[in-house]
């Protein structure tokens, strides 16, 4: 994974069928990048559903979360609607896994993102990261501690 203290590489990805989002547009807020293997797989559903309940906690720290996988924007739309998600899922779809590769969390064997978390500060500097075993939902305790440390 990319080292803590380095600048998070810029990217631009679809966040909905007709809209793209640039990382630099999110400057001024702490950003949690949640790379995950695939829409619809059981663990990812649990993980994203958990983050979906946490808006209030992220707000408290002036933070926003985005999910990133190699699924297409239409797949994300269906997954998002099905689970009533209130945060964007970004489609690292074409070229496939380019952003995940940039962040060193692409799995060449499966062709999916690894299950990895980055926390960026308001200036887009990586302040915390975590690589989870692929089948294990890392929960939110690590993210919350990282956000708290940044605020202290």
């Amino acid at each position: 994974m990319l080292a803590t203290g380095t600048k998070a590489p810029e990217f631009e990805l679809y966040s909905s069928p007709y809209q793209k989002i640039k990382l630099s547009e999110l400057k001024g807020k702490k950003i949690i990048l949640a790379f995950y293997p695939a829409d619809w797989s059981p663990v990812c559903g649990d993980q994203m559903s958990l983050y979906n309940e946490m808006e209030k906690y992220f707000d408290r720290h002036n933070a926003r979360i985005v999910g990133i996988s190699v699924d297409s924007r239409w797949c994300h739309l269906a997954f998002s609607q099905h689970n009533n998600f209130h945060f964007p899922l970004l489609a690292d779809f074409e070229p496939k896994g380019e952003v995940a590769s940039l962040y060193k969390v692409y799995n060449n064997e499966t062709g999916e993102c690894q299950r990895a978390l980055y926390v960026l500060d308001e200036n887009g500097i990586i302040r915390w990261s975590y690589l989870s075993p692929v089948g294990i939902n890392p929960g939110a305790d690590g993210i919350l501690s990282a956000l708290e440390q940044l605020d202290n």
Partner: protein
Amino acid sequence: MKQLIPVINSNDHIYGNEKALIELVEYGDYQCPYCGLAYPIVKNIQQELGADLKFVFRNFPLSKVHPFAFAAAVATEAAALQNKFWEMHDIIFENQERLNIENIIVFAENIGLDLQQFKYNIQQKEQSVKVERDFESGLRSGVNRTPSFYINGNKYEGEWRESELLQYMQGLLIAAPETAQYAMLNNQ
């Protein structure tokens, strides 16, 4: 290993022997089907382990996917004010497929709550705050699904749908010296 934060305390609803060697904490959601599956499994564990078990249920409602989960959790907290937390906990899980706002009142009636008092208490902020506090403690403890179990303060990552959970705790009882020490430290 992920740890229970905070440890069991006076805000918790405790079932069973307070000085038991085994402390089982469940973070659960009253509308979650897996928690519904876990309900009879935990009941069976309570029966099997008897005085060796202390059981605590903490609320972890996933409100965005389960619209009645938060209200159900608040209802158990309101029932607790009339000393009927576990009665409400049980009746909700036993009728999980019928869980909705109207039926929460029916459940309250069925377990013999003072309805006027109950209806007043479910509107009070204190009960929602308690549920939210449970939820936040779950986030800090690393809850990553419902149900999530903690045994003697450590997150249990194994299977639970058959008898694995019971067997794991029975194993701890066999290795009782260390477990007993933990329980003693915790009960000081």
